[in-house]
């Protein structure tokens, strides 16, 4: 009789433990859910605006565009020709050196990648990679695509 009583009490305790554990698990999931929602509410703007494809991101590359023009219109140190003209004349080594010098001068403040790509053959004639990660802008000069991508 006593054994039965003890066993049934053990069984009851075990059963009660199952419920307690189940309740704890439910509570944990509930709090996790609330936590996730509060994190999501902080990025509410991204969720409602970016999801609709309305704004692709904060930086539309306006700065990169002007910097690309600035590079192309600036003169190479060695022969006073504009970089744009050097590209047209296929002097790619000169272009690479000049642009590397320019980007090096501002590298503390701005990181940029620069390239000149042959649209016909698909290869890169100049490819300076400084690890920048931003909006890429490009334009065509003859059969070449010239591009810049900057991040701050």
């Amino acid at each position, binding site marked *: 009789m006593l054994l039965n009583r003890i066993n049934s009490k053990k069984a009851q305790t075990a059963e009660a433990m199952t*419920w307690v554990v189940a309740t704890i698990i439910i509570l944990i999931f509930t709090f996790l859910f609330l936590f996730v929602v509060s994190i999501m*509410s902080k990025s509410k*703007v991204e969720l409602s605006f970016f999801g609709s494809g309305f704004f692709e991101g*904060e930086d539309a590359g306006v700065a990169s565009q*002007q910097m690309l023009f600035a590079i192309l219109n600036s003169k190479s140190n060695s022969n006073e020709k504009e970089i744009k003209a050097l590209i047209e004349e296929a002097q790619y080594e000169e272009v690479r050196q000049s642009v590397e010098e320019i980007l090096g001068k*501002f590298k503390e403040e701005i990181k940029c990648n620069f390239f000149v790509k042959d649209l016909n053959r698909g290869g890169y004639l100049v490819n300076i990679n400084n690890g920048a990660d931003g909006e890429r802008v490009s334009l065509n000069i003859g059969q070449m695509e010239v591009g810049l991508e900057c991040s701050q």
Partner: protein
Amino acid sequence: MISKKGDERLLSFYWIVIFVIVTIAVVSAVVIFSSAPLDIRGIEASLLSDSLINCVSENGRIKEVFYSWDNTKSLEQVCNLYLKDMAYLDESATNQYFVAVRFEGREIKAGNDLLEPMCNAAESEKNIPKCNEKKLFLLDKEGKLILIKITSAIRKIEKNAVE
């Protein structure tokens, strides 16, 4: 038999408790999410900086007008900006924006000066403006590449950060 009925009652009570907890969780989640303000000032400040970049530069060069700047000119006029928030019905309408263009030791500003120092305040502080700084290099008058910094700040706290 009695204990079985008792078990059933306990079970029903337990389920009711769980339901109530889940309901409270769902309701709280919806209230948290929908009452969180839609803060667009980050994007707005970035767009304001972009507007200034488009105003200051043309084909990679700094426009002449920025070299001959004087008190008769204003950024609002030259860049076609309206830096007053008329959704405010009192004089705080003029305090919601700040913009600055800096290069070669020059500084051209417009709007509420008091916003800029608050830009670097900790994120956790309430009632601080949202700021944006963009740096780029452009050709100056002499064809030399120089660094320009564009700063913009937007306050508009009541419509973006107050719950």
